[in-house]
């Protein structure tokens, strides 16, 4: 059903509206729509030209990707919003990031039993590169972050937590508030944290520290070590590999054991 009617009355009304708009120097929405359609076709051509010259650059060069994304963000365009967008179809940026998203989820699922759904960006990066194989394109940490931001559209469950100089990626919908985050950041140094350490660094009361640690335990993000010297240690498996990633040969392992 058309909103615009036909008939003498409607035509007259339209002429009146046009006249009014012309007076005020504004353009009708339909005219603008027609203009947009034409400009869209032109833009598509320009983009095709750009793609034929520089598509490889986007695939191969992570820094160029960052620049590209930043420019898009500045003008208010999201090249990853839809697989049917021009950017995706002609530059192939979509597929690059969507596929990366799938790989990220696979890594997180595979390691969830160990780290409760929390992983450092470094470890995620290493694991994703491993999974992609040596002939695949290089991906940077920035690429991972962008892919993860897109995954957030699928509902709670993926979020990025800044700790120290890096990020923790959370892949389960555990509720982590500011208190939890700040304790995670404290734990980054040694891979574990204690109640005394929290009280000393953050100046909290025992009860507050205890509650946060218990929540992390419950969510499977922390492991309790009651055999540590002094008081109980709360270890964060997500932060392990950062500290203990050096490959150990069989001899060294044997030497290390008492």
């Amino acid at each position, binding site marked *: 059903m058309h909103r615009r009617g036909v008939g003498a009355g409607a035509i007259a009304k339209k002429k009146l509206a046009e006249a009014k708009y012309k007076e005020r120097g504004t353009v009708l929405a339909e005219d*603008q729509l027609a203009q947009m359609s034409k400009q869209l076709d032109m833009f598509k051509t320009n983009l095709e030209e750009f793609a034929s010259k520089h598509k490889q650059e986007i695939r191969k060069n992570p820094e160029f990707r960052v620049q590209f994304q930043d*420019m898009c963000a500045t003008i208010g365009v999201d090249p990853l919003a*839809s697989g049917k967008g021009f950017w995706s179809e002609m530059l192939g940026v979509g597929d690059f990031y969507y596929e990366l998203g799938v790989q990220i989820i696979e890594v997180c699922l595979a390691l969830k039993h160990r780290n409760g759904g929390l992983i450092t960006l470094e470890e995620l990066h290493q694991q994703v590169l491993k999974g992609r194989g*040596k002939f695949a394109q290089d991906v940077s940490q920035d690429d991972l972050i962008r892919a993860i931001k897109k995954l957030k559209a699928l*509902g709670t469950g993926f979020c990025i937590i800044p700790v120290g100089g890096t990020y923790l990626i959370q892949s389960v919908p555990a509720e982590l508030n500011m208190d939890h985050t700040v304790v995670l950041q404290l734990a980054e140094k040694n891979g574990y944290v204690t109640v005394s350490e929290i009280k000393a660094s953050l100046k909290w009361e025992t009860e507050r520290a205890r509650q946060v640690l218990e929540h992390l335990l419950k969510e499977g993000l922390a492991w309790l070590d009651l055999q540590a010297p002094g008081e109980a240690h709360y270890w964060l498996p997500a932060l392990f590999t950062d500290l203990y990633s050096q490959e150990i040969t069989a001899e060294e392992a044997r030497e290390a054991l008492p």
Partner: protein
Amino acid sequence: MPEQERHITAREGASRKIKFDAGTLLLSTHRLIWRDQKNHECCMAILLSQIVFIEEQAAGIGKSGKIVVHLHPAPPNKEPGPFQSSKNSYIKLSFKEHGQIEFYRRLSEEMTQRRWENMPVSQSLQTNRGPQPGRIRAVGIVGIERKLEEKRKETDKNISEAFEDLSKLMIKAKEMVELSKSIANKIKDKQGDITEDETIRFKSYLLSMGIANPVTRETYGSGTQYHMQLAKQLAGILQAPLELLSPEDLVNACKMLEALKLPLRLRVFDSGVMVIELQSHKEEEMVASALETVSSKGSLTSEESAKLVGMSVLLAKERLLLAEKMGHLCRDDSVEGLRFYPNLFMTQS
């Protein structure tokens, strides 16, 4: 010309203890140089003429790609290096961030061409010695660095051409964004009648450009024809999508499922978790089933429930939470986890 790779670990022999981490590896016509990424003063170099042969070790699970460089015994006039002496005659270069394939190829090329035999070069490894006057060709570390700088400038030029083209493209894209904002405002203010068809067309323009849809949500939300088709594909009515989807496309398609009267629908739990369920799936049945399983076992955690019923832990948790919300279950929240019991307060008062 000169090649460089980042994040290289250099190891002496097979030892895992004596190593230099996180450096940049530079290749010139005469030398292989390792330089600390953070402290550029710290660098080591090997003359290519000292290399007997090189081999490549492919990356694998848990290990990065490596290049092993076998060397001639050190000549007596060799400058001091990181070690007084070594029983090994090779070094291992570990490529933490890929790149060893290309580097190996270049190094092999240099080894084949042996260009150092044709060009004179000073033996200096000190970075604080400046270029010697009178030399026409740049030599030594400074010369290498200068050549690298030239190469960088050339690469930069290629990149800057790409950036230039990109900037021009972005200017045009920005015009489109402005235009679309203007149209959207008019639609909102209901100035200038545009038909439903035109609105749909407008939405597809926005989709193509990746512009967020500012038009007030109608029945189909941000959906376009594309999303309608996707929704039908998801519901199994059309053939399954053969390409990768953007997360947003998926969500937009799911939002249309119910409106299109398809047998699936999107459901958002209080926690924000989104699921796709059958239209025929009734909430009361889900809750009753959750209560039954919990009662049969006395109490259950999400993990136990998931295993019992054969669904993901996330979904199992949502079912239990929903049953709790309806008052059929109550929780026991402790360090050992979240456990649900039948709500006897309700049934046995």
